[in-house]
């Protein structure tokens, strides 16, 4: 997609959303911006993710509403994102997933370490994994997550079968679920050599969990326990507030014979900016700032979303470094961070 095409579509989508999403129109009016006053996609007002917690931004009655997990802030603080046209969501999802998880055209058996949509009907992750599995999953694809949580016994049994059958699999789940599997396998001394071409997609971080681990260490453990090489381990970065996701480019680069690097690539219908929080201007490559996404797949709500995630530009994409920290105390005043951290 050329810059001109993207810009044309973005401005058109903005005009549409300004017209059909009353809260978004109020937001833009508050900033003195209307479709008539701007000429570039960068000028489209980006809505803070916090707004999804308080207001329905949909441009039409939604076919599906996804709700953030909101583990750290309690149920009333969950963000909601309504999708009037799931078809758009699915197209973005499938094209992007195929490009970065299945660039070799594989249709592997999928082993999913997350709840199915019946268990968590409002989870965008569960929906996403279900759609991907229905479309690309090979025979024997299944969920390893039940009412009692992760089905470790079932998973370990399947992994042993797979080892013998020599058919590659694709493991999908949250980083937290994978961590649990790794912990158990390490403790019990279990190691697998999964068939060549097997791959793994994890998503999410460890904030607020009992154990945190570096990305490098996690990749090393995936290799040690599952026998999956680093270039077949892909991290996904997605959020309920967005219709599109981002994946590590490492497997796609490997398959396409490009020199290996690891960062999140931006699909053609998305633009991601890294902004200096002080000035809201674009930062040069490598400097850490706030991530703001302009996602045409969000055409049914708001395409420009200002996140609280910090990241930096690298190559044709970006890397995420975490959630914006609160300000630490410089002086002697109590800070939000300290107050929240009190026992």
């Amino acid at each position, binding site marked *: 997609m050329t810059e001109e095409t993207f810009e044309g579509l973005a401005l058109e989508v903005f005009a549409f959303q300004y017209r059909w999403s009353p*809260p978004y129109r109020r937001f833009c009016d508050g900033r003195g911006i209307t479709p008539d006053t701007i000429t570039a996609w960068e000028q489209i007002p980006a*809505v803070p993710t916090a707004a999804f917690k308080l*207001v329905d931004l949909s441009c039409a009655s939604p076919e599906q509403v996804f709700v953030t997990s909101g583990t750290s802030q309690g149920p009333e603080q969950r963000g909601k994102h309504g999708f009037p046209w799931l078809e758009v969501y699915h197209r973005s999802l499938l094209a992007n997933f195929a490009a970065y998880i299945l660039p070799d055209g594989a249709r592997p058996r999928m082993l999913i370490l997350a709840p199915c949509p019946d268990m968590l009907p409002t989870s965008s992750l569960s929906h996403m994994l279900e759609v991907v599995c229905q479309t690309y999953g090979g025979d024997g694809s299944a969920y390893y997550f039940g009412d009692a949580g992760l089905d470790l016994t079932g998973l370990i049994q399947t992994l042993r079968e797979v080892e013998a059958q020599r058919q590659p699999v694709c493991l999908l789940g949250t980083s937290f679920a994978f961590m649990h599997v790794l912990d158990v396998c390490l403790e019990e001394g279990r190691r697998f050599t999964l068939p060549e071409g097997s791959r793994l997609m994890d998503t999410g971080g460890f904030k607020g969990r009992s154990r945190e681990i570096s990305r490098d260490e996690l990749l090393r453990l995936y290799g040690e326990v599952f026998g999956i090489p680093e270039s077949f381990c892909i991290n996904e970065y997605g959020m309920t507030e967005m219709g599109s996701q981002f994946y590590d480019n490492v497997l796609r680069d490997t398959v396409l014979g490009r020199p290996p690097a690891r960062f999140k690539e931006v699909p053609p219908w998305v633009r991601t900016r890294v902004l200096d929080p*002080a000035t809201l201007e674009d930062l040069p490559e490598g400097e850490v*700032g706030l991530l703001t996404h302009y996602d045409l797949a969000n055409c049914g709500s708001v395409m420009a979303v200002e996140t*609280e995630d910090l990241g930096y530009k690298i190559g044709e994409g970006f890397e995420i470094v975490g959630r914006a*920290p609160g300000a630490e105390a410089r*002086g002697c005043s109590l800070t939000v961070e300290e107050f929240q951290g009190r026992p």
Partner: protein
Amino acid sequence: MRIAAYHLPSHISQFETELLPFGDVTLEVPRVTPTLLGDVMQHLETAGERLRKRKRREIVEILSAVFARLRDRTDPLRQTAEEALPAITGFSPAMVVHGLDLLCKGYGTDSFYELLQDAGVEEDLDGFVPRGSHLSRAYAPALTTHVLAGNIPGVGLPGLVAATLAGSASLVKTASGDPLSPALWAASLSRQDPEIGECVAVLWWRGGQADLEAVALEGADAVIAYGSEKTMRDLQGRVRSRFLGHGHRVSLGVIGREVLVRADEVAEQSAYDVSLFDQQGCLSPHCFYVEEGGAVSPKEFAEFLGSAMAKWAERLPPGSLTRGEAAAIRKFRAAYEAQRVAQKDIALFLHPRGLDWTVIFDPDPTFTLSCLHRTVVVKPVPDLSEVGGPLRSWRPYLQAAGVAVAPERTRMLANALGQAGVNRICPIGKMQAPPLTWYQDGRFLLRDLLRWTDLEV
């Protein structure tokens, strides 16, 4: 610019040093070892004996002279502070100059006598004095350890002055946010009276070194410490002698409807209290409760406050922000912007481009912690007698309330705020200049350092 940021007994000269870079300022500090620290503390105890033999009157005069000279902008030590503190603390040069002036003003002969009087030790501590039906004698700690925190120059001074007045030697462990100011103060004390200068040592070391902390805490008769709640709990558990902890605190402003006829003036005073030290202090207000029914509405007052914040941002420019701090302000603003989108009655008054200041009107009366750096929330209250309600759950953390009300309502309001846990109530515009005799955190300063022996005859 390279500056020595320590003060040691004159005979200690053999030690390794390390350099702490702060932009174009580099501070040279000793590499502190348990042996060095032990030597220093032993020396301080001995030197303290000479301090206790001096007359109170002399010490008061010396301290007054120290602050008088630091008030003078041509004084070389004052000049060093003005030149180096912006890079070290992150405050703008204008803020540093203003802050140092304000700081020095608070320490004069009268305030020292008041402090001694408040502790009941106007006379020298050299004998038993009548107290009611018996006699009492006060003993100063031989050595007080001061553990400082934060970047606001002068935070540790009340404790240092109190210890010196009481006759205690002092070991100061400076904060990473400002290792310099206490060293300059000790240098000016030495300059004024070398013998008393020998009773104060100032050192910096990286926090969390258990071996050094053990020496500094266990060898002292009293410990005065500043820092987070967590640090206070941790230190308290390791101090066997007297522990005076000052955890992080929050302050607020309260404005009565009757003063809103001069909303611009009150807003200017309020904005000054917020802007000073970029709102980093425990005396910096996080939010303002504004009474309804005045000449302007609380929301209109928020707009006045925004204009006043803009003026103070020019007079006392804000310091630099880290990316994380800037992101925190964006996040804070975004949360309110989101509420406005949800049609809540929120108003934002913002610096037109950057993050120099932020004023938010929020009808929710819940007390709100600010992300600081000149970010303040204005909340309406139907009647000032109700202001204690939203503060109740904040009792352990409350510090000062700046108030602007008619004189006849001051007592009523003070009762409500005092009951809620506020330990200092002062006029708006004076929040950052507490008297030396203020009962910080609701406790005595000098008196809490003393140990008493009663004699019944």
